């Protein structure tokens, strides 16, 4: 390990200001005696995990003779790589610098714009996420009523084509609310008022999906890019993500998309969903909680209401995953799962909300999200409890069996200045 750091430090002096080089080669490895968190709610103490040709070939308890290259992970933990859904990673580099932002196309109806083609694999952000165990992400456009198409990427790639795990997996809809917050200059306060464009906005969304559905009846292929982007939602090949934090909009949107025959619906929401948890459960729709480290929505809400939202949905039997708003702090995804534990969820269940559940919701659970034989070797090895700041030290990480480089620019700058000040 020390040796590795030394090499990396040497490399870093050359590669400073560049994100670490993506790894192409696969590494086979055998790990023994690890605490393996499967990502499906179960944990195996002192288990063996074998990586072969990019896949997990064995996991569990085996009588096998130790080879010289086998690694003893006594006291260490293995987790599935964490998955960050609904994020603008790779599309937004520096929030305040317009030139670095590619996540929000002009206009209200953009079902056909594709995040994947703008996804910047050389962004400075993925290294900071990987360092904390986030290995997969769903890069997602924002804004308007229909923002566009997201794609699922792995975070260690030469270019977006290499990064793509699933392209154009979902179309993202920002469902409008009846009421709208507006800034009032007279009183310098925010006032809520009726959204005057509400029915017009609803019609825009509905006519897009209605027209796309109708065009399925026609024999010829649609020549309309927007309709074309929406058509796969009726076969279930593409998902619809509804973004809203308004209880009535949740009901209206789910009812509409289910009626019109959208097969796969995911709701991205937060505390506003609390009064309609029963409806959400009944509808069978999965939920991505967009924000956990949040202030309570109302001044009289429980002080913990942001921290407990995912728990409430989970306890009601809804399939839940966690997202993290914005990019500047999304490397803290694992700690939002830790927060759920603090407020009553079992640790292994909380882990599911950033691994197994997320993979299920994104539709990549065949390969990702849990540590099972035959699945992709996309995992992290940590010093301790990855959901807690006290234990979240990622020692190694694999994406599809490639042992990736965790040392990014931030680590290199740290080394440089430790050296400058002679700190050991």
């Amino acid at each position, binding site marked *: 390990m020390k040796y590795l750091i030394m090499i990396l430090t040497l490399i870093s002096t050359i590669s400073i200001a560049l994100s670490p080089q993506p790894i192409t080669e696969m590494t086979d490895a055998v790990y023994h005696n690890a605490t393996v968190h499967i990502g499906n709610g179960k944990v195996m103490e002192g288990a063996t995990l074998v990586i072969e040709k990019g896949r997990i070939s064995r996991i569990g308890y085996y009588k096998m003779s130790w080879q010289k290259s086998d690694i003893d992970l006594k006291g260490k933990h293995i987790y599935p790589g964490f998955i960050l859904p609904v994020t603008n990673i790779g599309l937004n580099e520096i929030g305040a610098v317009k030139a670095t932002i590619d996540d929000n196309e002009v206009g209200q109806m953009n079902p056909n714009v594709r995040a994947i083609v703008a996804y910047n694999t050389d962004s400075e952000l993925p290294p900071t996420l990987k360092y904390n165990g986030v290995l997969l992400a769903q890069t997602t456009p924002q804004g308007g009523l229909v923002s566009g198409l997201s794609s699922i990427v792995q975070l260690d790639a030469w270019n977006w084509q290499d990064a793509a795990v699933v392209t154009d997996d979902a179309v993202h809809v920002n469902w409008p609310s009846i009421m709208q917050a507006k800034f009032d200059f007279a009183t310098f306060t925010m006032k809520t008022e009726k959204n005057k464009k509400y029915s017009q906005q609803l019609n825009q969304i509905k006519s897009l999906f209605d027209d796309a559905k109708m065009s399925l009846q026609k024999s010829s292929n649609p020549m309309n890019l927007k309709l074309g982007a929406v058509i796969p939602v009726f076969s279930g090949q593409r998902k619809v993500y509804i973004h809203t934090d308004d209880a009535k909009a949740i009901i209206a949107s789910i009812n509409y998309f289910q009626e019109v025959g959208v097969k796969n619906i995911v709701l991205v929401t937060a505390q506003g969903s609390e009064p309609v948890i029963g409806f959400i459960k009944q509808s069978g729709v999965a939920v991505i909680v967009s924000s956990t480290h949040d*202030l309570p929505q109302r001044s009289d809400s429980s002080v913990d209401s942001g921290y407990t939202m995912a728990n409430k949905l989970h306890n009601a039997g809804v399939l839940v995953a966690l997202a993290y708003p914005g990019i500047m702090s999304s490397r803290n995804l694992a700690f939002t799962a830790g927060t759920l534990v603090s407020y009553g969820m079992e640790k292994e269940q909380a882990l599911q909300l950033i691994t197994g559940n997320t993979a299920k919701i994104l539709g990549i659970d065949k390969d990702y999200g849990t540590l099972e034989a035959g699945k992709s070797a996309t995992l992290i090895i940590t010093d301790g409890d990855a959901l807690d700041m006290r234990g979240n030290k990622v020692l190694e990480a694999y994406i599809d069996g490639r042992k990736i480089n965790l040392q990014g620019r931030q680590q290199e700058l740290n080394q440089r200045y430790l050296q400058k000040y002679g700190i050991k």
Partner: protein
Amino acid sequence: MKFITLILCVYMHFGALAAQSPTSLINGTKDERHALYALINARIFVDKDTILDEASLLIQDNEIISVGHDISIPAHAIVRNLQGASIYPGFILMDSDYGLTKPDKKTPFSFFGKEIMDSTIEGVVNTNEAIKASYHAVEDFHHDAKTAKSLRSNGFSTVLSSKHDGIMRGTSALISLNDEIAQLSVVNSLQAFHMSFDKGSSKQLYPISLMGSSALLRQTWLDAIWYGDGKSDFTDLDLKAINETDDLLQIFEVSNWQQALLAKKIVKEFDKNIVIKTSGDSYKHIAEIKRLDSSLIVPLSFPKALNVSDELDAWNVSYEKMLEWKAAPYNLYFLNKHGIEFAIIPDKQKSFLKDLRKAIKKGLPTSAALAALTSTPARILNNSKLGHLNSGASANFIITNGDIFSKDGMIAENWVAGKRFVINELPQLASGYYQLILPDKTRQIELKNTAGKIKLKGKDKESKTKYKVKLNSEFVTVEVKDKDESIKLLGLIDNNSIHNIAGQHPEWKMARVSDSKKETIKDKLAKEDKSQVPLIPNPFSAYGIQQPSKAESFLISNTTVWTNEDEGILTGTDVLVKNGKIVKIGKNITSKVENTIDGTDMHLTAGIIDEHSHIALLSVNDIAVNSSMVRMEDALDSDSVNIYRNLAGGVTAAQLLHGSANPLGGQSALIKMRWGATSDELLIENSDPFIKFALGENVKRSRSQQSIRYPLTRMGVEQVYRDAFTNALSYEKEWNDYNNLSKRAKKKTSAPRRDLMLDATLQIINKERFVSCHSYVQSEINMLMKVADDFNFSINTFTHILEGYKVADKMLEHGAGASTFADWWTYKWEVNYAIPYNASIMTNVGVTTAINSDSAEMSRRLNQEAAKSMKYGNLTEEQALKLVTLNPAKLLHLDDRMGSIKVGKDADIVLWSNNPLSIYAKATKTFVDGKLLYDRDRQVEIENQIAEARNELIKALNQSDGPKMPASMEPSKQMHCDSLTGYEYLLGEVK
């Protein structure tokens, strides 16, 4: 009858006749009349304490000649019998812009637009456009017949007219609603001087915050004093006007209770008295309002009910919003109960009487209501002729049918300055007891006239006689039916009595004898059940319902104590707290304190201190490049639920900083999270004064493409500092020179102008005020240290300081501390090289380092933010905890009483459920000054209580009638460094 009609005709004619200006030439013949009127047999409310029944009022022109029961009525008086009617003194409207030009519309504020640095008003006026002290309403006044009519219909005869525009608004005039030409309408041309915190139509950028308005007011008064010395070769008509109006009544308009307290605080500094025009929310903190010892002008403003009929809408509405709806109508009840003097003004002219009656129904005594519309305004205006009907008073009165404060009451006439205005016709037959006299029999009857509907019945309840009455203009038929007979009578009405048509038979008469027996004349106190009076939580928040514990002495036993001292972490240890201080730390302490808290399996730490916070503030940023004159303590909001939420995160103290819009920002407020205390009590006693500085993109206004404000580069930022400090030094010299003059020489020399901005700037150089500087990149950090070195002081703290790791050695040498984020970066260009190793590198170099929040949410997880320094930078647990406790205490010069668990220090301590650096740790009990202000063990109980209170309010809202507002989520303010509104997070204008 004919006679009366004739009189009325003449009278009406007279009433319509406009008076002429004594200076005008008459086109025609002079027509001046000075009729004497006697209004007799009325119930007269002479003043708030004197009510005379069946009394008479004698008036001539604009004067009450006499009033009483036995006054002699001269033969030439025109007599009117007002039997059944009441006479009240005319109402005085204490706040209006009647007859004045409307101010320009507010310019919408743009975050990214071009700044307007200077006043847009030309002339010899103040350089700040919000200072409009030389405005005089009387010079602007013109007669407005339409508004006057509407005001009179609500009983007003006199209005105080001022222009509602600006921070200093100039003077008002007292105007009579006599419908005369402007020259004859003015009662007092220079009545009062008006102020507010609202810059109104001013297009100039500064001030943009509450504390900025406060600073501008203070500076302007200082300027006026300086100007008043008259030795200056500088002319400013606004400053001149301030001095000329110094003796006038001063009226300060505020828009919430916090501003009322602030207004009083700043006028005290200048020995001024004010009458405060409130927004009607005094009930939220009635004890504080009482302590102001100021008279108030109070609008009848009642928030509209919210439509919560569907549970999803109801879910959106906060307890506080609903309680405002419930409690606001009791505002006047509370004010009266606490003996606070107030004048009442309408909120909406249209519903004035309705709103007034609502307040009375909610417990405002009618006598208090009358005083608040008559004698109190007159007293405030120091006008002995208004507000009562004793002889010598102005002839302003209203004639009503029935009690004006009850639902049935109606204003019939409003006499203004002796001039009669008919609002509604008085009923021809007033309610009361009547005698029906027929040749053979006299019957005692009670007549009830409800808005023209007349009902008769026998006065004796046993009587079985039935009566019917029909009016057809002045003709009346009365039917009498009892078991013996049935009579139909035709007659004529004449002044509350009916008699047969002369010459027709039978001869009969129905005459009014007296008022019906009803409520005594004394105050009808509210009939409303007293249990309906809502309980007002303190603070005005759902989390104020539960009163926190007052105990300040207790023992925490058998716990793990993170001392932050040489002792390190002690297990199985007891800590004894007495009178808010830590008095003993050790094993098996025996003590007489009653309260022992079992700390087994828990961890005790010093309370978290947030070096960089913007919670509990009404505004955060002002915009002047040097804003050192603004004080954050002027914008404190002790009701902010974020104080409670901070306690729930183990935070016990914070530095509330000005924003980062300016190289020299405002003065900090250092507070403890004393939930339930007033704003002044939140402030930490005897703390050193601090100030915010800022560098980089925010002060360069990098987000604005159109900004013209100096500085736009880091080069300019340096010059701003050198300029400010150089000016401060020459300011100091100027004062020193002046102060060293002999008494005689002083008399001949102008004193230098006192400048609040330079005062604060000078304090910094003189090491009397300490800098916390928002900073990011190394170049600017080095720059500011160099500047400070050149002026012989040190920067106390660099806050944010995300590139501190690059210059930690330089900071150590300079003596600067650091307060940074654990892992924030990438939100703007200047944080591109931020690394999560920053805190650990600076700590290892030896810089006193803290981790702060700049966020109301993250401040509740600062222990976790500190723990990240272990993950990234391998700090020890003790080092990590100090980042959010002892180190910020040091940076704020509070480590002599906070930041560690040490005998003698304040008992600002937190009991954690787990290792405090673990994400699984929750603050279970948070103590400030030994008071248990947050107790997680009681959360379920408290939340249930809130839910119950919410349900009751929702029920009440659903049962209420009248129009309702749609209910929806009120977004909360979230203040950050560059917040101007607190809603940037919603408007896409973050950080």
